[in-house]
């Protein structure tokens, strides 16, 4: 008996397409109206961009193995979103500065995570969890309940608006595609990527084969922090407002997106394409449940059950008996 094998990213994407097509049959679905269907699809994709970008850093640390995970990404997103909001103050010329600050602050927090994990041997789960608390505390101090600021018009144009009037694809999706290609290059075509997978498979063999494990670990967490910082920058460009709880709701979905995309949570195997597909599936399910006007309780249960079914299909680990 030959098992049909289908790669997780493709499976997740197929699932997204099927779910979307089925959603057309809902009472308030798009039915046979293609224009509505198209606008709904682009809207869901646009929403998936932010989860997708935040999941990028998560993908890196999870691939690096040794229980790698980044629980601080949600609060980093909030922090850099607030920083961007405050720095830009509606001026186009400050946008680049805000982007650099977002990347630097995110990177620095990530580096601290990496240092704690590498040098002090704190497990990634609790190190980044503790860091998340510290960053949330810092946000409260900076924020003091309210901040004054404004996003720049150029950010809204670059992120939220469509490419041009004839091509109704929001820029955010195009940014994401370019971002996806860059992530693919990073993972598959650079020494960093090769070393990262080596780290995830087995740290000892990686070290013996000449990989600088300490440096790689620091770099991975710093990069993950910077990517979360970038996510915060993009997110505020779309929402246009900031609040204390802006980034936290993205945290666990970002881990779920990585898992749904077929990246092994134990490390060493995975892809960013998978995380992208995972982000689309999760965003789709969430927005479908919202369209169906389910109460919050049912929405949570359906989301949990779907996630459980998805990971039961291809998230299984090797059997003990081999």
């Amino acid at each position: 008996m030959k098992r049909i094998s289908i790669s997780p990213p493709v499976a997740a994407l197929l699932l997204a397409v099927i779910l979307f097509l089925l959603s057309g049959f809902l009472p308030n679905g798009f039915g046979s109206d293609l224009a509505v269907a198209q606008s709904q699809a682009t809207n869901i994709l646009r929403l998936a961009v932010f989860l997708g970008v935040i999941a990028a850093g998560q993908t890196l640390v999870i691939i690096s193995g040794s229980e790698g995970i980044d629980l601080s990404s949600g609060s980093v997103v909030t922090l850099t979103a607030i920083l961007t909001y405050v720095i830009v103050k509606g001026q186009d010329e400050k946008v680049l500065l805000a982007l650099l600050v977002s990347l630097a602050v995110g990177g620095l927090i990530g580096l601290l995570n990496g240092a704690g994990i590498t040098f002090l041997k704190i497990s990634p789960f609790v190190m980044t969890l503790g860091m998340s608390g510290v960053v949330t505390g810092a946000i409260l101090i900076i924020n003091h309940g309210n901040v004054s600021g404004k996003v720049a018009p150029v950010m809204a144009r670059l992120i939220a608006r469509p490419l041009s009037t004839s091509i109704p694809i929001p820029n955010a999706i195009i940014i994401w595609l370019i971002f996806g290609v860059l992530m693919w290059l990073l993972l598959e075509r650079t020494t960093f990527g090769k070393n990262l997978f080596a780290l995830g498979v087995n740290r000892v063999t990686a070290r013996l084969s000449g990989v600088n494990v300490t440096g790689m670990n620091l770099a991975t967490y710093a990069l993950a922090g910077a990517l979360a910082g970038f996510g915060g920058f993009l997110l505020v460009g779309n929402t246009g407002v900031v609040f204390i709880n802006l980034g936290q709701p993205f945290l666990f979905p970002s881990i779920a997106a990585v898992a749904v995309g077929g990246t092994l949570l134990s490390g060493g195997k995975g892809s960013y394409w998978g995380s992208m597909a995972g982000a689309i599936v999760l965003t789709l399910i969430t927005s479908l449940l919202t369209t169906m006007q389910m109460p919050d309780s049912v929405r949570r249960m359906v989301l949990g059950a779907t996630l459980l079914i998805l990971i039961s299909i291809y998230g299984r680990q090797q059997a003990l008996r081999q």
Partner: protein
Amino acid sequence: MRRSHLNALAARHPALFALALLVISLLINVILQPNMFARDTLNSNMRVFLPSILLTAGQAIVILGGGIDISVGGIVSIVNTVLATRVGLDGSPEKMWQFVFISLAAGLLAGAINGFFIAYLRLQPIITTYATSFLYAGLALFILPNPGGGIPAQIAALYRDSTPLNLPLAFYIIAIIILIWLYISSTRYGKFLFAVGGRAEAAYETAVPVTLVQFSTYVISGLMSALAGIAITMLSGSGNADIGNPMTLNSITAVVIGGNAMSGGIGGVAGPLMGAITLGFIQNIVSFAHISTWWETFVKATIIVVALAAPGVINLFRSRRA
């Protein structure tokens, strides 16, 4: 000579550091709250800590067995909402005990669901319990969409004001947990637990019933979560579907502060219990120290990160000198 002696001691008793932390936080607490050891003050502290202590004990078993349980807060919420809606403020004691029994069964069932997916379907613990946490939290919200309901005041008083022999009720419960743990760790099951957490494949090859042991840890955690849910309901006297949510990550932090390794197989239950009490003291210290509200989260999180980092820092300095 002396240094190696210290090292050996620390390796043998991972909870030693937790004990030191507990003593330090206790001393600071006594300075800030001079009547700390008065019967009523002690009781009012301990009854607030007890729900987290119960939850942490279950989490410690799961982590010892090499897993993690993110759904514990959801189970606490289910129990809380069931008791608050089904017993009611004017319910009879018989009804209360009947639903306490049902709550325990619900906790066991929820834990068994986690265990089934993780041990028998071999899914990754973190993402599985994340998915079920949505199921459980959603169910709690379904049972009680808005905070309300409650349990009879005289039953709540039983938990809040019981001080047999002038000692808080919590002391007896902690003693019972530790006695049970001492018994369990001396049995064959205890040895199996450490073996599975240490290295599941090796345990499997030496005929340890790995699947059954993994399954059992989640059932125990479910039971402890239900007990924690009962305790917190009797403490607050009312129902709120989000009551368990912040308790999950707290329990994991407590286990790690208690000296258990996140990868499993190292530690015990007494250390994590001390960790849970320490976290409670830290919360107390932050609220008693008259820190500005905006700074509270930051200070608390920083203390926790420092506590997590301290063993690593000590090791770092020791290995430098050696």
